[in-house]
């Protein structure tokens, strides 16, 4: 009986993880291509995908480097996009039990996708299983497609614009943002953040508008007092459509 339940649960997690892992593939190709366009070597591109392993933060850093931004603005913008890992870590900590080095190793798989699948499960051991399955799957696909994108599109900037792949980044960012927009404080933060960034583009070096957009969180304070964004913690589980 329990074995049967376990098999059903395991299959359900595999299905969830599979669709999310597949969705990552084009994104990885685009990252590889973007890294090549920005002048990164294949080894550097793989370094970002294997060591940093955080989609939007890799895009942000590479985009800023490609635009001629400073080392500091690229690194800070990239790291700020991973600040949400602090919250992810708090959510997943109880499920990532084990020795300290096991916890450290498992936390490297912490990305939107692994958190989404993990946090969607109700029991601790299934949260752990979902997190690990999605995390390992995305890690493998993300790195393979990074190589494919870099090799297939290296030095072919025209191909990227011809295929409209320069719109894939914006579309992916919007898709990652989309589920957050259903919460009013998140929506206000996003709108104000976008406006701040837009206004600052002509006046600041690349990267700085993205950093300045952080001040958009101030906008969330203008909501009704009972409108608490604490539910957003739960929303994190569904941030991948």
């Amino acid at each position, binding site marked *: 009986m329990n074995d049967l339940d376990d098999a059903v649960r395991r299959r359900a997690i595999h299905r969830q993880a599979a669709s999310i892992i597949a969705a990552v593939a084009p994104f990885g190709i685009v990252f590889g291509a973007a890294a090549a366009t920005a002048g990164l070597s294949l080894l550097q591109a793989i370094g970002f995908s294997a060591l940093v392993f955080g989609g939007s933060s890799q895009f942000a850093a590479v985009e800023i480097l490609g635009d001629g931004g400073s080392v500091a603005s690229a690194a800070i913008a990239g790291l700020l996009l991973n600040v949400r890992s602090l919250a992810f870590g708090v959510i997943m900590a109880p499920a990532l039990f084990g020795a300290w080095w096991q916890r450290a190793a498992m936390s490297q798989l912490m990305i939107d996708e692994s958190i989404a699948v993990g946090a969607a499960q109700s029991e601790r051991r299934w949260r752990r299983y979902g997190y690990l399955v999605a995390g390992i799957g995305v890690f493998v696909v993300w790195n393979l497609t990074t190589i494919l994108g870099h090799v297939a599109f290296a030095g072919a900037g025209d191909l990227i614009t011809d295929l409209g792949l320069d719109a894939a980044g914006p579309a992916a960012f919007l898709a990652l943002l989309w589920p957050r927009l259903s919460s009013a404080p998140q929506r206000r933060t996003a709108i104000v953040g976008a406006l701040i960034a837009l206004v600052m583009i002509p006046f600041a070096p690349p990267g700085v508008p993205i950093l300045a957009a952080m001040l958009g969180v101030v906008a969330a304070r203008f909501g009704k007092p009972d409108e608490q*964004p604490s539910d957003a913690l739960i929303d994190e589980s569904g941030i991948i459509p």
Partner: protein
Amino acid sequence: MSDSTIVLIVMTVGTFALKSAGPLVLGDRSLPRRVQQVVDLLPAALLAALTIVSTVGDGREIVIDARLVGLVVAGSALWRRLPFVVVIVVASAATALTRLIS
């Protein structure tokens, strides 16, 4: 060492710290509520900014081009609850098509 390598090293170390902080240090304890609220909101501001900057930004210039068509198409695809992959494909296709006919 190239700029890209320095950024890679800094981000590797920093991201490792951010990812492992919860499981290693906090354990089962949670952040102060006010801090947690700000952390929850940061991705919204940053993803929105990245969307805008990658759509109309070109260095220190604002450039309106076919990317904007792709973003609008992506938005309507998301509105129709289409899957992530489809959103990316239609946005890219719309941008490519716009360049082809203009």
